[in-house]
């Protein structure tokens, strides 16, 4: 239980996926203009990362390890993620249309989100078991949701500010991210 708690704090706050690992920055910079789209993206990412880290961990433990195929993990994981995203999209469309309407747009964007593949690979690198992998996936995506929500809130307030012309758009968002990253450094004291 204690190790799981440490994993949650480390992955969500200390080693935040966006601000210290630099994974999944495309949606972080691109889809953080409004907080409701940021929330949708964050939820979809959470959904996919938690499931995909579980499935890829199961495949790694029961298929790749026993047959000595660990060198194939990049190819296997990316295929698992791509087909999982398709499958989740189809499942939600058929069974839970209300959830599909709120998350559906974001799902196709997730296949190329490097955070998803990154978490699966990190689970292997840190030799986490299946439960630990799922918890790590959940915590990492919680960190993603947290960071993208903070960013979208800040960006909504920045709209009315007078930003130097050269810094408008991506540069000012990156400077905001840098300040958030400095703030998140403070969490290192927690562990």
């Amino acid at each position, binding site marked *: 239980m204690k190790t799981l708690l440490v994993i949650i704090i480390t992955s969500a706050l200390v080693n935040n996926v966006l601000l210290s690992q630099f994974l999944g920055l495309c949606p972080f*910079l691109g889809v953080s203009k409004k907080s409701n789209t940021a929330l949708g993206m964050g939820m979809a990412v959470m959904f996919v990362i938690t499931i995909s880290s579980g499935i890829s961990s199961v495949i790694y433990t029961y298929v790749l390890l026993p047959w000595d195929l660990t060198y*194939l993990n990049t190819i296997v994981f990316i*295929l698992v993620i791509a087909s999982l995203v398709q499958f989740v999209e189809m499942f939600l469309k058929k069974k839970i249309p209300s959830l599909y309407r709120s998350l559906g*747009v974001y799902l196709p964007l997730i296949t*190329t989100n*490097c955070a998803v593949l990154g978490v699966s690979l990190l689970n292997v690198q840190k030799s986490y078991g299946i439960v630990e992998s799922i918890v790590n996936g959940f915590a990492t995506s919680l960190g993603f949701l947290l960071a993208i929500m903070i960013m979208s809130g800040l960006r909504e307030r920045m709209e009315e500010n007078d930003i130097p012309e*050269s810094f408008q758009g991506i540069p000012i968002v*990156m*400077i905001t991210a840098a300040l958030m990253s400095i703030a998140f450094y403070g969490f290192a004291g927690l562990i």
Partner: protein
Amino acid sequence: MKYSMFKSTYVERLYNGIIRENPIFVLTLGICPTLAVTSSATNGFGMGLTTTFVLTFSNFLIAALRKVIPDRVRVPSFIVIVATLVTAAQFLLQAYVPSLYESLGIYIPLIVVNCIILGRAESYASKNPALASLFDGLGMGLGFTLALTILGGLRELIGAGTLFNYPLLPSFYQPVTIAILAPGAFLVLACMIATQNYLRKKSGKPKKNCSCGVEGCGLCQGELPTRKDEKGEKA
């Protein structure tokens, strides 16, 4: 005749990738590895060359197979080709440059999901002949390498006072360590893009549109694709 043709397509592709549509400075694609590995010029250069290797061969293979791959399954097929090349690159690095393999770590397998690679596959290699695509990949890769080396060099120079591990600044210079930490990556790249915006505005050139063909790259689209776009894409 032959030379002028060579010049018009292949040299143009190289120039396009390195200068005119530089993936980092002009298109802002593939930001994740750019920020993550550029804590030193050596790492940036190594990552750039690895990506160039993958991009050149993936563009070539995809262009060569473009008539064989059915349109409906093209993205998964591209991903398999890219993932195979990335695994090969990973083995080569592990065998011949183990120090770089150690310092790049997880970001080598993550080349698979680099927007630049799938973006070029979708927007160029799937529509053009193999050799032109090879040069397109080479140009884009070298442009990426150039950008990563400059960014890594700047961060290393500010943050540690060295360049390619060679001490460059006088000893009384106090290194600003934050430049090689995570926040420094955002700060330095933000300032570089802002400088570029300023220069572009001064010379009166309009901003380039992004040619990234991948849905996943929300960055260059600025906003989400609407439901309608998606249907059009699938039809």
